[in-house]
């Protein structure tokens, strides 16, 4: 029963929250869409924390995405032990980079008086959830060395079943606790996106690549650029 709630109902609740609240916040309080950078108040800790964290998590998420899109190729790759080790070792490396970055950021947030002033309750909630999630991920990588095969063999079909609106929880309810925690943690983070500063990942400025350097806005003319 609990598994059904967590693995078959909660994913939809989380996504619905993310979409509905995300849109609501975007249209009713666009001013609040910000990464709320605190580099201005504290520089050095941010360098070690933010850079490690962001590049680590980007690599990890990219790995998850690749596994999600081509699970069979991942399984085939893992068919030979040394290749499994290479994959697991590099994933672990990025996982530890991410964890290191996150820990630095957490320490920075609580040790700097200036940063504490700009820390909201949701920032703390988010840091705790992220810490649990990253620890669960790294734990899986260390103690279950076939994690990537499990992901491709069980978690990915399960995720597809969610997407196809016929959740098949039998794929996941026998997985170890830490792995289950990692899956639930992912949904919690998705649900938290619109309530926290995570909204900044929805507004990554891709348009910068193709817009001209200068932006000019006219009252009466249609074009806004150039």
């Amino acid at each position, binding site marked *: 029963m609990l598994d059904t709630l967590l693995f078959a109902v909660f994913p939809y609740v989380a996504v619905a929250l993310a979409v509905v609240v995300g849109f609501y916040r975007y249209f009713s*309080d666009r001013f609040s869409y910000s990464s709320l950078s605190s580099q201005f108040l504290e520089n050095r800790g941010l360098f070690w924390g933010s850079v490690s964290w962001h590049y680590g998590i980007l690599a990890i998420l990219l790995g998850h995405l690749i596994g999600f899109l081509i699970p069979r190729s991942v399984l085939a790759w893992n068919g030979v032990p040394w290749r499994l080790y290479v994959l697991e070792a590099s994933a672990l490396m990025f996982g530890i980079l991410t964890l290191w970055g996150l820990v630095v950021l957490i320490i920075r947030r609580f040790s700097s008086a200036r940063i504490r002033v700009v820390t909201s309750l949701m920032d703390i909630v988010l840091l705790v959830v992220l810490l649990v999630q990253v620890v669960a991920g790294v734990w899986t990588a260390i103690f279950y060395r076939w994690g990537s095969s499990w992901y491709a063999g069980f978690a990915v079909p399960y995720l597809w079943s969610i997407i196809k609106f016929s959740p098949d929880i039998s794929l996941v309810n026998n997985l170890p606790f830490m792995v289950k925690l990692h899956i639930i943690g992912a949904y919690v983070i998705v649900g938290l996106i619109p309530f926290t500063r995570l909204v900044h990942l929805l507004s990554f400025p891709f348009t910068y690549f193709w817009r001209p350097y200068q932006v000019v806005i006219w009252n*009466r003319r249609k074009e806004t650029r150039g």
Partner: protein
Amino acid sequence: MDIRSQVSMVFHLDKCIGCHTCSVACKNIWTDRKGTEYMWWNNVETKPGTGFPTLWEDQEKYKGGWEKKGKDLRLKMHGSKTGGLANIFYNPNMPNLDDYYEPWTYDYKHLFTAPEGDDQPTARAISLITGKHMEIEAGPNWDDDLGGSPVYAANDPNLESLTENERLALNELERVVFFYLPRICNHCLNPGCVASCPAGAIYKRGEDGIVLVSQEKCRAWRMCITGCPYKKTYYNWGSGKSEKCILCYPRLESGEPPACFHACVGRIRYLGVLLYDADRIKEIASVPEDELVEAQRSILQDPFDPEIIALAKANGISDATLASARNSPVYKFVKKWKLALPLHPEFRTVPMLYYVPPLLPVLAAVKDGNYDVTEIADAGLAPMLSSLEKARVPLRFLASLFAAGNAEKVTAVYRKLIAVRIHMRASRVKDIPEAEQKEALAQGNLTVKEAEDIWRLTSMATFDERFVLPPLAREVAVEAKVDPSTHKREVGFGFKKAGERKW
């Protein structure tokens, strides 16, 4: 040609007394909110000095503005746009709070609540950020009037252009000299802040050229703080948004000059419209350094030229704006008389705030340890015109500030300023021979009429002559989108919500 109009400015440094009234007027209106305490959209610096934030002119440190790369211009902070976005998680060239100063107030309450004792209670400084007691280590005008010169004035980046002797001479007690440099946002034609903003939140208003940060689009990627070489975009640490001087556009739209202009005690500030050719911005921003001043003048167009007027009208510039362009004191100072120069044109942002450099007591000599001017007075006009090289503030210093190192441009300005001074003295006090007066005018390349016009606009100009505001016609802007009465019913006079951090 794409003729556009720009509300632009001239600051006459000879008249600045360094009273900071402008800064205070601005602060009281715009930056007394949480997160903005440390911001000074308008500030006044002592030169030589390191300015605010400390060493802002040192672009090796802060990487602001543009640089030439082959034929192209690129932002100094980015190798490329991709390289710039790679730094989005940590901006390596961003000044942080300690490069400005930690804002504070005082624990006044303690004066009343302190227990009785033998000592007078004191009000200790409290940080406006953390709310804790703090030691004050810096302020927005920490090196005011050469305070702490060995640390501050001695580190002015512009001093690099001077010889060792010139540098020593600047510090010689009897010759010690300084002047003030008030700064606001330059509302550039090729702004570095706009170009560096990944979110596209910063924009130039087409009609009047005012550069603004959209508070709804800003996502705190904080590239603008680095991109602006003048360090005139500031990061609001409370709201997570960048903010900058808005040239008091709400005041301009209701026909009043910006608060800092209005409040200026020395009446050093002039505001008016310039017409420019937007097609040539990139071209004039890319010329070699010693041609920058002339190139930046050449983009400004003559508002009396019928051809320019026709092109401007075709571009939607109103008759009223054109009339104000013809009357613009800025046009006279910058283009007609060539007296006002841009601040650090080598940053290549094409700033639209110009400075008339300070004439100061031009010469001084130390004779037997005493400050001595008799020699100069006896020699008549000659040393005034011939020994500009020995001016108390070395020309190279001023050239480094206002002409990208091209001392010729600064010399030409000084010859004019001296000519005006001599001409007026000769015609009023009549203690200078006519020949010298003529010689001065010839060297300054000025006619009698021009010299008198310059004198008039410099020292006698009324409020309406100093501030020639174009009608910004906000009602027209509203009308373009919705019926004005509907608009007013729907949104009143602007934002109804306070910009607060709630999530």
